[in-house]
C-alpha cells in the first residue's frame, strides 16, 4: 500500500512506512491523530444536532402541557457530552521509558497550564520497559498509561497479563488503546576518524563486520595499522534493562538470518548464530563490569570518555542527535550509520484497561495523548531528536536535525530493511541465550 505521507509503496500488512515511519495498518491508522480527530469532529456534530432537536422537542412539549406548580422550573438541561467534573482532579500515572524523559517532562508541564490539563495531574514515572510491564502485571495501581520505547514488550506483557489474570490473550485486553507518540530508528554511532579506518577495511558497518573486528586478537593494529587504539570497542545497553539493548539482540538475529519478520526459536537455537552472538556479546565494553542500563547514559558516556572507551555504540537516532554538537566539541565529529536491519522505536502510548483504571482515567489518558500528538508538542519532540508521529509535522524542513546534521550520515528517509517485533517466547529465549553468553 502507498504511504499517505511520503507515497512510498510498502508491503501489505507493514505497520509503519519503511521510509518515513508513518503508520500504515488499519489499527495504526485508527490511532492516527488526523483520522481520529476527523471522526471525533463528525461525531460531535451529530451529538449537537441531537441535543438541539431534543431540546426543541422538550420546549415544545412543555408549552402544550398545563401549568403546574413547577411552572417556573427551568427546562431540563440539554444532555451534554460526558465530561470530567471540574471538581475532580484525576491523577494519571504514566510509566515510560527514559529516552523520552526530557520531552515528556516538558510536555507535562505545558499540559498542566492548559484548560484540560488543570483537572489532570500527570504523574510521570520513568521506568525500564520490562520493569514497567512487570509492575502492571503485578497490579501497580499507580500506573494507568504505559509508554515503553518500542513494541518489543507488548506481546510479553499481554501474555504475562493473561497468565496472571486468568483467561486467554484475546479475552479482556489490558490495552484499551495504543498510539505511537514519536519515532526513532536504531543507529550505530562511531567516531568519524575511527569509522574512516574501519570502512577502509570492511566497507560497511554492520553487526557481521563488527563481529569480525571484535575477533581480531590484535585489535586496531590488525584492522587499520593503529596499535595505539588497542582493541576494538563496541557496546550497547544491557538487554535486560534497556530497550535498545534488546533491540541490538533482535536485530542481530534478523541480520544473521537475513530475514525481517518471524524471528523464531529455530533461528535462536542455531549453534552458529549462538557462537557468533557470543563473540560479540562477550567482547562488549562493560561486559565484565556491567553494561550500561540506559541508552541516554550510554550516549553521555561516549561523549565524556570519547574513543578511549567506545569506538562505536548502538543507540537511538534520537540519542545521537541530542549529543552530536557536544561530541564534536570534546573529541571530534561523529558518524551515524543505519544498520541494514532496523526497527522503529515508536514509543507506543498504551492506555490501560485494568481494574484500577476507570473511565475517568481513560478519558484523561486520551486527553493527554491528543495533547502529545498536537503539532506544537510534536515539533518539540523533533528538537529532542525524535521523528513525529503526527503526519502534519514534516521531518525534512531546514530546522530538522535530520537535515541540519546530514553530513554526519543522518537521513530523513532511513535506508535498510525494517523488521517486525518477534513473539514473546522468542524475546524470552533471546534474553536467556544472551544471559548464557555472559557467564564466564
Amino acid at each position, binding site marked *: 500500500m502507498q504511504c499517505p505521507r511520503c507515497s512510498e509503496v510498502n508491503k501489505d500488512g507493514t505497520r509503519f512506512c519503511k521510509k518515513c515511519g508513518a503508520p500504515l495498518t488499519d489499527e495504526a491508522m485508527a490511532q492516527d491523530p488526523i483520522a481520529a480527530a476527523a471522526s471525533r469532529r463528525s461525531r460531535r456534530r451529530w451529538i449537537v444536532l441531537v441535543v438541539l432537536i431534543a431540546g426543541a422537542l422538550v420546549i415544545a412539549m412543555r408549552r402544550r402541557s398545563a401549568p403546574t406548580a413547577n411552572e417556573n422550573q427551568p427546562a431540563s438541561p440539554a444532555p451534554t457530552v460526558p465530561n470530567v467534573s471540574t471538581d475532580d482532579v484525576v491523577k494519571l500515572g504514566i510509566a515510560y521509558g527514559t529516552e523520552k524523559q526530557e520531552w515528556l517532562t516538558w510536555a507535562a508541564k505545558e499540559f498542566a497550564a492548559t484548560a484540560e490539563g488543570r483537572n489532570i495531574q500527570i504523574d510521570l514515572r520513568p521506568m525500564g520497559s520490562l520493569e514497567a510491564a512487570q509492575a502492571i502485571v503485578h497490579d501497580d495501581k499507580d500506573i494507568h498509561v504505559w509508554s515503553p520505547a518500542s513494541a518489543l514488550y507488548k506481546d510479553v506483557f499481554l501474555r504475562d497479563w493473561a497468565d496472571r489474570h486468568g483467561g486467554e490473550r484475546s479475552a479482556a485486553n489490558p490495552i484499551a488503546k495504543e498510539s505511537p507518540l514519536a519515532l526513532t530508528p536504531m543507529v550505530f554511532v562511531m567516531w568519524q576518524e575511527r569509522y574512516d579506518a574501519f570502512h577502509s577495511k570492511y566497507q560497511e558497518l554492520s553487526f557481521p563486520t563488527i563481529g569480525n573486528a571484535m575477533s581480531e586478537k590484535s585489535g586496531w593494529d590488525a584492522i587499520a595499522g593503529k596499535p*595505539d*587504539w*588497542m*582493541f576494538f*570497542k563496541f557496546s550497547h545497553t544491557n538487554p535486560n534493562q534497556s530497550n535498545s539493548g534488546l533491540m541490538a539482540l533482535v536485530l542481530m538475529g534478523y541480520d544473521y538470518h537475513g530475514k525481517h519478520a518471524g524471528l523464531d526459536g529455530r533461528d535462536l537455537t542455531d549453534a552458529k548464530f549462538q557462537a557468533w552472538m557470543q563473540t560479540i556479546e562477550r567482547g562488549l*565494553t562493560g561486559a*565484565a*563490569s*556491567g553494561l550500561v*542500563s540506559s541508552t541516554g547514559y550510554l550516549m553521555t558516556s561516549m561523549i*565524556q*570518555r*570519547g*574513543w*578511549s*572507551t567506545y569506538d562505536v555504540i548502538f543507540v537511538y537516532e534520537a540519542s545521537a542527535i541530542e549529543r552530536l554538537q*557536544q561530541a564534536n*566539541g*570534546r*573529541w*571530534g565529529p561523529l558518524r551515524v550509520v543505519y544498520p541494514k536491519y532496523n526497527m522503529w522505536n515508536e514509543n507506543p502510548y498504551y492506555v490501560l484497561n485494568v481494574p484500577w483504571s476507570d473511565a475517568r482515567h481513560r478519558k484523561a489518558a486520551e486527553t493527554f495523548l491528543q495533547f502529545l500528538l498536537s503539532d506544537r508538542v510534536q515539533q518539540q519532540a523533533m528538537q529532542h531528536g525524535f521523528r513525529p508521529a503526527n503526519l502534519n509535522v514534516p521531518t525534512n524542513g531546514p530546522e530538522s536535525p535530520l537535515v541540519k546534521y546530514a553530513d554526519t550520515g543522518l537521513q530523513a528517509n532511513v535506508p535498510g530493511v525494517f523488521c517486525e517485533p518477534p513473539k514473546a517466547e522468542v524475546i524470552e529465549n533471546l534474553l536467556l541465550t544472551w544471559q548464557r553468553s555472559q557467564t*564466564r
Partner: protein
Amino acid sequence: MVCFTLCGCDRRDETSSTSKASTASAPSPAKPQPREAIELLFSYGSEKQKWVEDVTATFNAEAHTIGNGKTIHVTTVASGSGESKDDLLAGRVKAHLWSPASSVFVKLGNAESMVKGSPLVGPTKELVLSPVVIAMWKPMAEALGWPNKPVGWSDVIAMAKDPSGWAKYGRPEFGRFKFGHTHPEYSNSGLISILAEAYAGAGKVRDLSVDDVNSPKVADYVGDVERAVVHYGRSTGFFGRRLFEDGPTYLSAAVLYENMVIESYAQPMTVPLVAIYPKEGTIWSDHPVGIVQRDWVTDEHKQAAQAYIDFLRAPAQQKKALGYGFRPAEGELGAPLDAAHGVDPLEPKTILDLPSPEVTNATIELWRRNKKHSNVVLVFDRSGSMQEQQKMIHAKAGAIELVKMLGSEDELALEPFSSSVVSLPGAKMSDGRADTIDRINGLVPDGQTLLYEAVQTAYRKVSADTRSDRIRAIVVLTDGEDNGKRVTLEQLLKEISGGREGGTDVRIFTIGYGQSARLDDLKKIAKQARGEFYEGKPENIRNVFRDIATFF
C-alpha cells in the same frame, strides 16, 4: 576513618595548600542556619575537594529549598574513597550523599552492601571526570620518548625494575627511578595502579581473571614494580603536593590524576610536570555521586540531595570544575585542559577494562602479599607528663592501631624513651605482632623527655639496616619538649638530612601530642626528613596513627 578533627597543622595530605583552622577533612565551617533547614551530609573522595568546597559554599549561600520550604544546608566531608566506603557501610558516617573518586568503589560498596540485602547507593551520575595518568617530570618523560613515542606502564615498570635507573636513557644525573602511588585500599589511584600492574603482568588489557591475578608470574611482576615505590600514602593529593614541593629528586613519577598535573602549574616549579597517558590503557576516575540507601536518609533528604546534585551538575558549577582541571560531566572543554598545562584533551586513547569486584579484591590481596615492606621504629614518649589527661591510654591505643595495620612482612621496633632511651629489637609482624602489642601496653609513664637523643638513636638504627628494598621510617610521638640537652635540634637536623639518594630515605613522622609539645621543632624534623607532622590529641590520636599507616 574520617578525619573530622585533625586541625590546625601543616599536614598536607588532603588539605589545600594554605593551612587554615578547618582543614581539608574537617566539615565545612558552620554558618548560622535559618530555622527550618534540612541538613545534608556529603561524603566524598578528597581528589575534588577544592571544587566541592568552592561550589558548596555557593550552594549554601543561595539557600535552595525543597518542596515544603525547608532550606537545604550541605556539610561536606572529604576522605579517601576506600575509607568513605567503609565508614558508610559500618554506619560510622551517616552521609546522605556519597561520591568516591571512581565507580570501582561504588561497585565494591554495593557488592558488600548486597550481602545485607540492599545496595549502598542508588543509581549514580558523574560529577566530573579525570583520567588516571603517570605524572612525570617533563625532561624525564622526554628521555622516554614522550610525546613522539607512546609511553606506558611497561616502560615505567621496566624502569622500576632496572637498578641502573635513568642512566639507561642517557640521563644518569636523574639517578634511580623512583615511583609512587597511593595505598590501594584507601585511594582510587592506588587501586588503579595495582590493577594496571596486574594487567601488565598478565600481558592483557582486558578480561583480567582471578586466575591471572593469582598466578606466580603476576605476583613476581607486581613485586618487582612495587620495589621501585618509595612509599605509599593516603591520598593522591598528598602525593601531588610532595611532588610539587620536593621536585625530581624525590620521585621520578607518581600515579596521579590529570587534574593534579594541571594544578601543579598554579605554582612556580623549576621543572614542569606532564601527564603520560599509558599506552596500554588507563582508567577514568569518574566521580559518581549517588544518594545513600539507608534508613537515616528520609524522603526529604532525598529531595534535598537531588537538588544539590542537580546544582553540582549545572553549567556554572561544571565550568568551575574545568577551572580546577577536571573534565566536566557536562559542558565544553577548554583551558586549562591543554598542552600548556601538560595535558592532552584528546587522550586517553584507550582504557583498561574495569574488572569485577572479585578480581579487584583478589588484586588487592595480591598487592598486600607483594608490596614493598616496611621497617618502622616507633619512638614513643613515656615521660611522666604522659600520665596526665589520659594521654598515655589513648596514645597506646593509637600505636596499637598502627601495629595492627602493618603487613605480616613489615617490621616494627619499639623505642620507648623518657629519662633514657630503650632501643628494642625489631619484630616481624608475622610472629611478633602480639608481643609488640603487649610491650606497648606495658609501658609506664615516668621520667624526663630525651626526645632528640631518642630520634637520633632511632635514625642510626634504621640507617644501619641496609636492606634497600624496604620503606624505612620512624614514627615519633611526644607530648613535651626535649629536656635532655645531650643532643641539640641543630645536630639532629643535620644528621637526618643525609642519605638522599637511592630512594631509601629514612622518613620521619612526628606527632606533637598535647599542648606542651614543641610543634615547630617537630615540624622541622618532619620536613627535613621528608615525613609528615601531625598535631595529635587524645580524641584523634588513633586516626593519626591510622593515617600514618597508609604510608606503609
